[in-house]
């Protein structure tokens, strides 16, 4: 049963990821992302972490995707204005890297998967989760807040001060 669910959820997650990449419409992409997020919540359930699964659904499935959809609709992106942006230099490197990842994954599959040696940590109740997050992993947790703060300051700086001027079309 667990095996079937795992495969099903993985297919959903990967399919959602591909959907994000392959669709041209931003709304379609956002919905694909939603599928991936929900499938990952299912994975957390399988890993015996119900709290994490609930948070995943509420924060990612709920708030983040809704925000995405709002932004897309507010910006009113039209198909014809979305031109493909390419990384001009070193494209072959990226392609090579992609192939390498593929081989790597195939190798793992053939080698029989991971050993599952990682300690799964405390069971997924809120208490155990909080205990782990605010004691053993408090440093990474705080580092994440610096990350978010830097992103926030950067976003404000880029939009408020560094917006392209009207005459800068040349």
């Amino acid at each position: 049963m667990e095996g079937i669910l795992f495969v099903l959820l993985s297919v959903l997650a990967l399919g959602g990821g591909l959907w994000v990449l392959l669709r041209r419409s931003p709304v379609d992409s956002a919905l694909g992302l939603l599928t991936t997020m929900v499938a990952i919540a299912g994975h957390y359930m399988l890993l015996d972490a119900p709290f994490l699964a609930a948070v995943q659904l509420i924060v990612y499935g709920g708030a983040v995707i809704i925000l995405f959809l709002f932004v897309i609709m507010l910006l009113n992106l039209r198909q014809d204005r979305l031109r493909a942006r390419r990384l001009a230099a070193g494209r072959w490197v990226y392609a090579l890297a992609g192939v390498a990842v593929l081989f790597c994954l195939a190798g793992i599959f053939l080698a029989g998967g991971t050993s599952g040696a990682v300690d799964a940590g405390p069971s997924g109740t809120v208490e155990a989760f909080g205990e782990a997050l605010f004691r053993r992993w408090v440093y990474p947790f705080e580092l994440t807040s610096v990350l978010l703060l830097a992103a926030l300051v950067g976003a404000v700086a880029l939009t408020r001060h560094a917006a392209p001027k009207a005459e800068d079309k040349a």
Partner: protein
Amino acid sequence: MDFSGLNVAALLPELLVSGGGLLVMALHAAFRGRQDRQLVWVSLASVVAALAFCLNPLTVEPGYFGSALSDPMAFAGRITVLAALVLLLPGGVAYARSRNLPQAEYLSLSLFAATGMMALASAGDLIVLFLAVEVLSISLYCLAGLMGERESSRQAALTYFLAGSFASGFLLFGMALLSGSAGTLDIAALGTGLARVSGTGTQWVALGGVVLMIAGLLFKVGAVPFHSWVAEVYSGSPTVVTAFMSTAAKAAAFAGFGRVLLALGSVSEAWVPLVGICAGATMILGNFTALVQGNFKRMLAFSSVAHAGYLLLGLMAVGAAGESLEAVIFYLLPYVLANAALFLVAAKVSQAGSGNYKLDDYKGLARRNPWLAGLLALLLLGLAGMPPLAGFMGKFMVFSAAVRAGHTGLAVLGILTSVVAVFTYLRPVVYAWFHEPEESGALNLDGGLAFVVWVAGAGLLLLGLWPRLWLDLCAGIGV
């Protein structure tokens, strides 16, 4: 609540610097931007406080359950990053003011980036390593785009963001595979974890993780074949930001890289050929591309690619023969001093000349300001590795470590490419001393820039004559 095992002292430098960043934002908001000229002093105070704490003679135990280390590598990385900040922040603020960039945002993003860099140099586990890389990267993406009125700055930010996210993905995926198969997140314990699974199928998973992680890290340090972003990002970003990227960020990335490779020493046969090829290609491509540049900023960008090659050579020795990271630690500080000063000089000379960093701007510099021309020569020759300057000792230590580890061929390649580098670095010097000036009139330095150039020059000379000074300091503290 039980706080045992945290040991806040292990994290105090990071806390001071990120606190400085917060304070800058708070003061900016409180005074509604009217006192922005004073914010640089707040930032410098937090940096100097962190520097003073790092240099204190007390032994600091690792903190946060081994996530925040205080070994020589962490010490050297933090000092190098903080030294770069001391040199760059005053000049950076002057640059920001003259080009109408937001000063408060420049300062706080620089401090947040520095927090990430220091956390990276002292990271004890893979989660902190990744988050630290992200903190410094996100801050730098934004700093790169700060001059958004220019197309080149926007393009630099976008390119850096795309390439950097790609690299982060590699890094994270590699970490997941590696920690999954080794059964631990603790970087130092990765080696024993991998030894346990050697010979089983999991070994191949671990190997995939190692390769992906190294690819991600090579991307972050801008080594061949993952160097394509360097030229565009370095030349498009505001010059003071480029200086910060090519000095502090690179030093921190190499500290983290070194820590990972040191832990993976037991599987060195898996990654030494890979890193070796990249190191050789990086030295060749970086040096020859730098040679043909007619633009000083681009020349420095490619020269920093070349230096990444030499540093990779130093890292290879670490994994193979139980060499210490001494050579890499030593190489970084003079490199950072010289590069930080050179980028600031480049901004000054370019502003007084063509405005787009042409090498021609240096023609006849000796007539216009002989002291500046002399120090420019000192800094460039220091980067080239001329004795008795510190660049020579750095290269000497890296090459001899490589020879001891059995990579004689690569060491010879390194020496040959260094000869090419001498030509690259001599060109502006020859322009400055043996060409007629295209513009007349003295080129005076303001106090801050003069301070930076003199400190960097003195540092290069001092470290070159007494290399043990810095090495003993690193070895003596926090072990």
